[in-house]
């Protein structure tokens, strides 16, 4: 293949496909390379895809994309061993166009999305691993693949190769990831008839719910569990920092089975048939872990650039926005015929001014702080459960006495000052 492309995009996930779609639509000659049998065959996520960022690329995507259910209710659980304190929001405005977010199954969605880029004129090659970037005179000029005669050249290479980001690492854009910068998440897709899902989650047809689960779902280790409703299946998963998994000598699938068998969870998935099991890493290093994003003839997008907001479980939307901004920058670079780092740096500066950079910056210390002070998950969540139990149990004790007891349970062993410090510390990293 001796043809030279305007741009080569490595990885047909949300970041790479967004970049390929926008560039192809503008008339650029784009090659999209995917290592899996088809786009999505290597990709995993809990399942929430946000409407806003997708609409910025394909305005009425929800009329044709393979989506599961629009989410109308988002619940949060503070889980203890035999109880849960729950909160959430349900709003029917989310059941109407243009929607807020959807559950998706990535193997289906990513195929559809990559085909949209192909419709715009991008060339998609599956089953091809990019083994390295071809660098000449300090400039990335193409990629080397594992196909025979597999060198391919382009003005710009977009690295959207996912969380492991081996290509950006080989360019020296970042060091090897650390075990406290990634979460190891495992999940199961469990088939369950639509009617049962709607009954159990209090939904109308074509409405979905999500539950984020903190506390006992990860045995107090920094991480979360989740339950998301698809059309006729449920995604249930759990993830913790890899460092937490290692330190506690946990097997991730044991943690998943613990959650599946938890008395608060079991009735929701009862009678379901497991259909798939999947493991994946999630970048959790955030702002501090972001690699160099731009070089001569190269940009880094999506998970490869560590663009995940773990606090609000957003990632695919950040990936799409980064791919879109990268594409718009490359379109300008093409007009100027300048693919230098200086020119492409517009991508980085626009990205950091967008919600992607702003949100990553806002929560830059959150994960690290909650990891360092495990009290929030392993002390306060059980304490909140105990407090709720105390307050709502009618046992002849006066309410004033109950309140006193509850206050005491929160300050026990650390004093009022210690409790205030705990609150201040978490407010500081979340504010």
């Amino acid at each position, binding site marked *: 293949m001796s043809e030279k492309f305007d741009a080569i995009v490595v990885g047909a996930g949300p970041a790479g496909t967004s970049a390929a779609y926008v560039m192809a639509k503008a008339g650029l000659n784009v090659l999209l390379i995917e*290592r*899996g*049998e088809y786009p*999505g*065959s*290597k*990709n*995993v*996520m809990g399942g929430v895809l946000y409407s806003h960022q997708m609409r910025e690329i394909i305005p009425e995507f929800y009329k044709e994309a393979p989506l599961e259910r629009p989410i109308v209710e988002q619940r949060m659980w503070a889980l203890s061993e035999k109880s849960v304190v729950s909160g959430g929001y349900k709003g029917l405005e989310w059941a109407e166009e243009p929607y807020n977010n959807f559950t998706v*199954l*990535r*193997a*289906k969605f990513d195929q559809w999305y990559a085909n949209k880029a192909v419709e715009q004129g991008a060339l998609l090659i*599956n*089953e*091809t*691993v990019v083994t390295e970037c071809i660098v000449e005179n300090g400039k990335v000029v193409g990629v080397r*693949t*594992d*196909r025979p005669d597999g060198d391919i050249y382009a003005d710009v290479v977009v690295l959207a190769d996912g*969380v*492991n980001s*081996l290509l950006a690492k080989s360019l020296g854009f970042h060091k*090897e*990831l*650390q*075990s406290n910068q*990634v979460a*190891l998440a*495992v*999940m*199961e*897709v469990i088939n369950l008839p639509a009617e049962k899902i709607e009954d159990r989650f209090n939904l109308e047809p074509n409405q979905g719910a999500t539950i984020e689960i903190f506390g006992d779902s990860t*045995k*107090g*280790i920094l991480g979360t569990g989740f339950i998301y409703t698809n059309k006729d*299946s449920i995604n249930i998963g759990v993830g913790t920092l*890899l460092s937490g*998994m*290692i330190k*506690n*000598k*946990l*097997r*991730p*699938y*044991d*943690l998943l*089975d*613990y959650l599946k068998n938890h008395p608060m969870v079991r009735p929701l998935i009862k009678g379901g048939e*497991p*259909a*798939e*099991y*999947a*493991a*994946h*890493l999630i970048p959790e290093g955030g702002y501090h872990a972001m690699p160099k994003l731009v070089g001569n003839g190269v940009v880094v997008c999506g998970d490869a650039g560590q663009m995940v907001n773990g606090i609000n479980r957003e990632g695919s939307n950040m990936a799409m926005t980064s791919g879109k901004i990268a594409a718009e920058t490359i379109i300008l670079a093409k007009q100027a015929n300048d693919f230098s780092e200086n020119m492409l740096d517009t991508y980085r500066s626009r990205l950091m001014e967008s919600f992607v950079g702003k949100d990553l910056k806002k929560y830059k210390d959150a994960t690290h702080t909650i990891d360092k002070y*495990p009290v929030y998950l392993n002390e306060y969540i059980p304490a909140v459960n105990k407090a709720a139990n105390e307050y709502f149990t009618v046992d002849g004790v006066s309410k004033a006495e109950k309140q006193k007891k509850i206050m005491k349970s929160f300050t026990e062993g650390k004093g009022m000052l210690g409790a205030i410090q705990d609150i201040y510390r978490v407010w500081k990293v979340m504010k």
Partner: protein
Amino acid sequence: MSTITVPKTNTLEEKQYLLRFRADSQSHLTVLDHDICAKNCPDKLCTLFCPGEVYKWEGTRMSVGHEGCHECGSCRIGCPYQNIKWEYPKGGHGIVFRLA
């Protein structure tokens, strides 16, 4: 911090059975030095945290069942001795998610 215990469930085989793998004849994972596992790593950590139970300690060497690998990257990052060489399987090979 107190030790966290989660009951071992022994259902990983059932989970892995749900998946489609297009295994390559050659492993994309290599344990570089089995002596490091033997001498330096009493807990054989990768045998615990690997979500596909790819790694199994066989007394003197680490067996690597690359056929069941999810390609997540945990072993490369989590091995405390950087003792695992980790590449992607050849194009089209390895795990094939149909849903996820």
